[in-house]
């Protein structure tokens, strides 16, 4: 693909990565904890507080989860760290991976821009004029050679016909 189309594709790729990053983070963001008197929404509680906040400000929450229920039996305590584990990994790893991809895409765009073979318009037009003149000269030369070759071909054909006629006439019938 030519480099400008590659640049356009890279631009589309960057925009796709950006909107996917925002969309994924907004979709997967856990609700924010308004106050310590409310139950921690990251825990598997029957009535988690629904929130509309976008960013996961609650990176510290999985660490605070085990401290939330002081009178809870050790069984529930052991259960608490286990379920939040899978979302915690995603919450930490996903933004890193997505921002890494975004930065890589931006770097690739810059690399493609640096690889652009640019020259000024006047230089290009001058080169085109020079090439056209050279093309004319070479074309005339080619035509001359072609005409000479066709002439020689006709001459050879005439000679060939003469030679074969002579061969046929001189050959004694058996």
């Amino acid at each position, binding site marked *: 693909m030519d480099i400008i189309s590659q640049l356009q594709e890279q*631009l589309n790729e960057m925009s796709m990565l950006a909107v996917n990053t925002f969309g994924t983070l907004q979709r997967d963001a856990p609700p924010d904890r308004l106050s310590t008197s409310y139950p921690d929404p990251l825990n598997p509680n029957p009535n988690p507080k629904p929130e509309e906040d*976008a960013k996961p400000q609650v990176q510290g929450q999985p660490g605070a989860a085990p401290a939330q229920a002081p009178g809870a039996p050790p069984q529930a305590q052991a259960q608490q760290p286990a379920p939040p584990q899978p979302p915690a990994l995603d919450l930490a790893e996903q933004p890193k991976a997505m921002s890494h991809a975004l930065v890589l895409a931006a770097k690739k765009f*810059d690399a493609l821009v640096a690889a652009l073979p*640019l020259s000024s318009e006047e230089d290009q037009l001058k080169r*085109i004029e020079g090439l056209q003149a050279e093309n004319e000269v070479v074309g005339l*030369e080619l035509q001359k050679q072609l005409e000479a*070759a066709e002439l020689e071909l006709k001459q050879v054909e005439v000679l060939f016909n003469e030679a074969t006629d002579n061969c046929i006439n001189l050959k004694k019938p058996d």
Partner: protein
Amino acid sequence: MAMSASSAYPPPPPFYQLYMDYEQASSAPEPPLPIDGTYTIFGSERQINEVLPSLKSLGFRQLYPKDSNIDFKKELSIVNRELQLHILELVDILVERPSQYARRVEDISLIFQNLHHLLNSLRPHQARATLIHMLESQIHRRQQAIEDIKLRRDEAQKMLGESLLVLDGSQTN
């Protein structure tokens, strides 16, 4: 299948009679002249010299300086940096003041418009570069053909001389 007395196939279109006299004179019609101005294609009218509309005419603000000679590489990298900064700004806004996302999203889309406009402005340059490449390859092919023809003519001359010697030799025998 009914076999009729007349031919079962339709006759050829009558245009073939226009191309009959090749050896004597070309009775074929002239090719149509190239059109100028506007032409209609798929129901809509388009120009022969289609010019990229400026960002202003499309209603977008132009972020890079308006100049007759733009340094495309520099402007593209500058606007790319702007894009990254705006994405980070959007992230910050969503964290702190989520209700004010609209302005930032508009800015980001404006940046993308500018980037695409810059890339589209590079297309005429690419067209000229393609033309240069085509001319160069045509010149190269013609020179190859000239070399080829010269070679063959020399070979033919040599063979002709050799055959003359052979014929003379057989004649004297």
